[in-house]
């Protein structure tokens, strides 16, 4: 980024191209129209829920402190793995927690999903710091800011030379938990919307009771929620390009791009998932 002759970046990051914005808006509108045509108002409401879920996932990923390979050697702060892996872990944990609470209603299930995702990240972040501090003997020090915005701890005197910081400062821990909670909430929201649609459609198509089709509806909603979760998480990971320390990292300001991309991608994926049974038995 600092190389001589590199293109100047407006405000720290390149904004989306006009074509990108137009494409996203058109895709979202077409998807909303299609969902209304295929499954009427219920489809429209479900697709809006799916888009919100996707946006929450794309936004949440930016909070998670991702260290990548350098973190494994204690040369950069964060958890020592890639964005996709961390997001998948938090999202799936959230999805399990939310799916378990699905019969208790939308609010409780969504809250349960958020707690599940947040809990997984809290445990991961804590254990990462336990290993860093007691196993590798390195203190937590951010390389991007001089002072922790929450605790006020200073970092430069603890930062080793030649590194970008190391360990997991408190602000990154908090970011990880927020990110996990948002991811779990978003994944659960997608799952619940799809489950509602499938539980209404499948008994009619297959001529069976809701209890009989429950395994199919749950499995389909679950696998599609996982698929959409990973698409949104990877798009957000591409937005971050590598490592991020948490909400205090300058890269965090790039999140509007990921929100647009996640909204458009979820709209397209969502309308395909909602229209799953439209061609069943036609050919």
């Amino acid at each position: 980024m600092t190389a001589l002759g590199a293109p100047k970046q407006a405000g720290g990051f390149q904004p989306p191209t006009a074509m990108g914005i137009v494409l996203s808006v058109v895709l979202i509108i077409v998807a909303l129209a299609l969902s209304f045509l295929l499954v009427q108002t219920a489809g429209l409401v479900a697709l809006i829920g799916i888009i919100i879920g996707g946006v929450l996932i794309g936004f949440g990923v930016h909070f998670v402190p991702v260290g990548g390979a350098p973190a494994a050697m204690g040369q950069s702060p964060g958890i020592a793995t890639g964005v996709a892996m961390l997001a998948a872990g938090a999202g799936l944990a959230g999805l399990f927690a939310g799916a378990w609470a699905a019969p208790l209603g939308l609010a409780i299930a969504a809250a349960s999903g958020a707690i599940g995702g947040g809990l997984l990240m809290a445990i991961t972040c804590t254990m990462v710091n336990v290993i860093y501090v007691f196993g590798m003997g390195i203190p937590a020090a951010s390389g991007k800011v001089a002072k922790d915005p929450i605790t006020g701890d200073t970092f430069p005197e603890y930062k080793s030379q030649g590194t970008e910081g190391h360990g997991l400062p408190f602000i990154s821990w908090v970011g990880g938990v927020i990110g996990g909670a948002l991811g779990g909430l978003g994944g659960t929201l997608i799952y619940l919307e799809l489950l509602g649609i499938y539980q209404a459609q499948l008994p009619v198509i297959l001529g069976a009771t809701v209890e009989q089709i429950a395994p199919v509806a749950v499995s389909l909603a679950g696998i599609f929620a996982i698929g959409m979760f990973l698409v949104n998480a990877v798009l957000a990971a591409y937005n971050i390009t590598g490592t991020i320390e948490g909400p205090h990292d300058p890269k965090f300001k790039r999140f509007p791009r990921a929100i647009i991309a996640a909204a458009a991608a979820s709209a397209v994926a969502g309308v395909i998932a909602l229209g799953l049974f439209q061609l069943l038995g036609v050919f």
Partner: protein
Amino acid sequence: MTVKVEVGAGGVPHNKVMIYGLVGSFIFLYLTYLNTYLQAPYLAFFGGLAAVAALVWGADTIKHLCSYGLGTGVPSAGMIALGSGVLAALFGATTGVLTPIVTIILAAIIGAITGLLANHVVRMDIPAMVSSLTELAIVGAITVLGLATMACGTFEFLGMITGTFTFLGFTVQTYGMSVIGGGVIAVIFMLGAIAIQHAFNACLGPGEKQDRTLMLAAECGFLSMITVAIISFAFIETYAALLAFLVSVIGWIYTYKRYIDLSKRDAYAWLDAKPIIEPKGGA
């Protein structure tokens, strides 16, 4: 930007690998359709072979995409491939005999959209992004469809959601004992996601050779096939599942041996050492 991931030059051109992978997996998928004319799904294993053909192609695509240095790790490419692929595969499965065609077209559309979003909204600005994500979505879709077909003997949606179990001598039809209803689709998802990204993730670096990477991709594919063949004992006739299991094991042993040979070849070339030649007729 992060460190450029080194890839070896030379080998079979990517377009050739793509054509072989696409045409091969397409033919293999349609060979499984002949099961409808047989007494038992003896040809189910061709679904697994379709997945292997697609995985070899996918590993080569990931190699091209990741040589640009995404900064997010190679697994993220595998995750977005399967995430978008599973949607296309299950939607395609509802279209009866047209399944492979619809799956490939739909996956290409989803992949192209995610590629455009990655380039124009998230601003990755990587020339190969759109084509690579399109290919990866098709690979992911074929992998899911192929392995699911292998598990239940058919690529038709109703076959994937209905199963039978015998209770006190009576055969009962149920939705729970099926590939989708039983949640096997989630296992297939992860088997495919790991198989697609592992090959290049393991082989990248200086001295990377295309034939070794692709042989590892085929080996991972056969390893996934073994797991799916064991799963398929629950859904299809024992002899058909046994045939699938034997094909998988033989394929795995062959590709594993070839991979070890190629690894030894490259390790020897890398060391720049000369082997000790044993004199003819013993020392």
